[in-house]
């Protein structure tokens, strides 16, 4: 299960937070844990360089993209490798929507589109689409090109 996708700005404020199968009372823990993880480790990291951590049986892969940092959390079959696949799709989709590496402002300007992309990528904790060009078409309700 892909337990969470979280996007924060450089000050650690949450921009997007989507949980799957995480009880409501644990979400705040997760949020502060991830933000702290980012604050401790993401300084000076290059765009899209993937960092990894594990806590008990849960894996976290995270990265920085322009002004925003992106975290994905998973367990069981969503181990660090599956998560790195998922975060790769997310970063490429975000870059695609924003047209470049996003500033916080640009990210917020394209917020609706980004939400649609995330909806295509992760559906209730399962990875659904992995190709950015296809996602780009799907959010505009266009069928994929190979069809």
């Amino acid at each position, binding site marked *: *299960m892909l*337990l969470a996708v979280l996007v924060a700005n450089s000050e650690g404020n*949450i*921009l*997007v*937070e989507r949980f799957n*199968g*995480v*009880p409501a*009372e*644990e979400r705040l*823990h*997760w949020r502060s*844990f991830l933000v702290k993880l980012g604050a*401790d*480790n993401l300084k000076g990291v290059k765009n899209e*360089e*993937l*960092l*990894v*951590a*594990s*806590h*008990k*049986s*849960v894996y976290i*892969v995270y990265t920085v993209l322009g002004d925003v940092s992106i975290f994905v959390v998973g*367990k069981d*079959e969503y181990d*660090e*490798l*599956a998560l790195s*696949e998922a975060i790769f799709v997310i970063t490429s989709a975000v870059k695609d929507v924003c047209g470049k590496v996003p*500033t*916080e*402002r640009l990210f*917020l*300007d394209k*917020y*609706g589109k980004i*939400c*649609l992309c995330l*909806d295509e990528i992760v*559906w*209730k904790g*399962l*990875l*659904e*689409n*992995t190709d950015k060009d*296809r996602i780009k078409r*799907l*959010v*505009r*309700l*266009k*069928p*994929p090109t*190979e*069809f």
Partner: protein
Amino acid sequence: MAQPLVKKDDDRDDEYEYSPFLGIEKGAVLQEARVFNDPQLDPRRCSQVITKLLYLLNQGETFTKIEATEVFFAVTKLFQSKDVGLRRMVYLIIKELSPSADEVIIVTSSLMKDMNSRTDMYRANAIRVLCRITDGTLLTQIERYLKQAIVDKNPVVASAALVSGIHLLQTNPEIVKRWSNEVQEAVQSRAALVQFHALGLLHQIRQNDRLAVSKLVTSLTRGTVRSPLAQCLLIRYTSQVIRESGMNNQTGERPFYDYLEGCLRHKAEMVIFEAARAITELSGVTSRELNPAITVLQLFLSSSKPVLRFAAVRTLNKVAMTHPTAVTNCNIDMESLISDQNRSIATLAITTLLKTGNESSVDRLMKQITNFMSDIADEFKIVVVEAIRSLCLKFPLKYRALMNFLSNILREEGGFDYKKAIVDSIVILIRDIPDAKESGLLHLCEFIEDCEFTYLSTQILHFLGNEGPKTSDPSKYIRYIYNRVILENATVRAAAVSTLAKFGAMVDSLKPRIFILLKRCLFDNDDEVRDRATLYLNTLGGDGSVVETDSEVKEFLFGSFDIPLANMETSLKNYEPSEEPFDIDSVPREVKSLPLAEKKAPGKKPTGLGAPPSAPTSAADAYEKLLLLIPEFASFGKLFKSSAPVELTEAETEYAVNVVKHIFDNYVVFQYNCTNTIPEQLLENVIVVVDASDAEDFSEIASKPLRSLPCDSPGQTFVAFEKPEGVPAVGKFSNVLRFIVKEVEPSTGEAEEDGVEDEYQLEDLEVVAADYMLKVGVSNFKNAWESMGPDCERVDEYGLGPRESLTEAVNAVISLLGMQPCEGTEVVASNSRSHTCLLSGVYIGNVKVLVRLSFGIDGQKEVAMKLAVRSEDESVSDALHEIVASG
């Protein structure tokens, strides 16, 4: 040069100030949502409002029931718009609002229309939304469309239906299982993602049908798998088939191994790792099978990508637990990872090295770790501390260096969990390594001189009270304990008073001095401290002269408290102050909810960062208390051993039953832990009918039925057998669960009055020789062996026939005898032709037994074994030989 820089800064300021969501407020957005009701819809404006709603929801904002309903009804109006972008947003916001069952009806007709639309993309999205919000009743109406969608030409539609199926399988399995023909067809799809999703769903539908899974794997491993993701799934299913099918006995080859090995050369890293992991997790994996996997993992250790380094070191860390020698080749690469920027990787590298290192490398490793400890977080330090604890138990002779390390880090800064892990480790080392006791206790004493955690101070004081009096010079600890009385808070002071009393009771020569100290405590300003001091002064016997303490007093001070604390608390709360004193015998001793019978669904509960688990209770103690509470078994004497639970039903059956075998000298009690998983049923008078015709030495003497077994609230029923005293009788028992079943009305939860008698066949159960052996380790086998002496030694040689490997032979003998392997000798070095394994245990009748096993394997894989047994009783040494001869 300066100008553009200034300009850029200005830009940034503007950007920072002007966020599109600056000052966003829920109430205002909900007001804005009224535009959804406009007769002339403005799609752009509506999309913006939905984006704001999404932003609020994604920030963790919640809507009240009324707010959500209002927004949801307004959103449904947007189906009138033909604007494509807006429609896509509408699908998303409906899912996010997750309307309640009674509201869903408003959109179902619109969504069903979209589901049959000519526009493929409407179909796909409508399916996803409907499946997210629908319940079982609606599902039967749309099932036909979903089945069509699974085989739709458009891969997006097919994927939407398949992923919906994966979700719906959790709630409506019987419906989704009917789709297997369509899903089977989708597995052959040319679209990579459709194949991936179909494979996942098909496996979930058929996971309980071994033959079907095996066929699926056989056909796909020969055919084409189009995406790395699907390939990973296939590898997982393949290893499941391998686990269940075992070795091909004729050729000695493992089925599908070639496929896994082939995947190690796949171009996607994900697939390579999955295959490597699958190989390392094969049961009884040989070093020949393991080598290629270790080689690719070793290459990834020096990858430039942290995720790959992490994945490699994590897998090798697991391998090191079972095959430490196989990983030693990677030690050089692993050592360079100690300085890895990513602390997760560094910690895994360290703990792996601690497992694979040999006795001679301990000192060098400790030096490296000391530097490393200062710059990692507490949670990683805890992992290292735990690894050091197991290393110390493996090499008890190295306790001095390791204990010093623990005491040094105990003095440094750290949080509660970290300090607790260190203290727990020192306590365990003191218990298991007698030589380490005195130095360990002194380290703990120094720690409580400056300890900020009340919980740890009291825990250490309690431990000190039990262990300190048994040391060669108990008086040296008194200073540390009495300092607590002077310097600490009331809780710690009270604990220190109890500890002093224990020293007084056990060490007669110290008694007069302890009395003086306890008398000083009578002037403490805390009630509890004064009360305890008074109590102990009285129980220890008045005048404080050097006399021996009564055994009753010792029992009072050191005995276990056998009343459940929850019951004690309730009784005390109900007690009203009166002339009549509180009577402790009136507290009920029946345990209401047992820690052992906890609902076992570990996989279902999401793991988070939640509260730390409560301290583990000793299973053996809990069992003993439980059995003592049952009058029929109270006269059985001391419980010798309780086995681990043995499952008597398959996973996910309607009734789940496992059994724990409790062994007494004269008796055996089977404790059947039963769980009823059907909400519509209440079971009553639940009992297991045991047929012991294949266990001649056993005769049934008592059984205790379970009065009522509601759904998801586990309960126990017991059956007791008599057997000849001290004889390790073995036998096979067949079991049938018998009960009266009553229907439960789901809406009220009430059961009908009349029930029907029914039975449920359970798996057979065996009592084996290993059930009469306790796993008790010794810290220094050589010393223990020599001090036992050769008087009751019995030596013989056995041929074990052809075996797959030496490891397999060693494991078979260990599990046959049920003894504790010592000094890590259960691990066989790869490629070795001979091996010595040391075992220790306590046999029924409380007889200590030590075993030295020497194995040899020849070119034809014939294994020979020399078994030397030493014990305190020669008949026991003979008995062990008999077990091996008949096993």
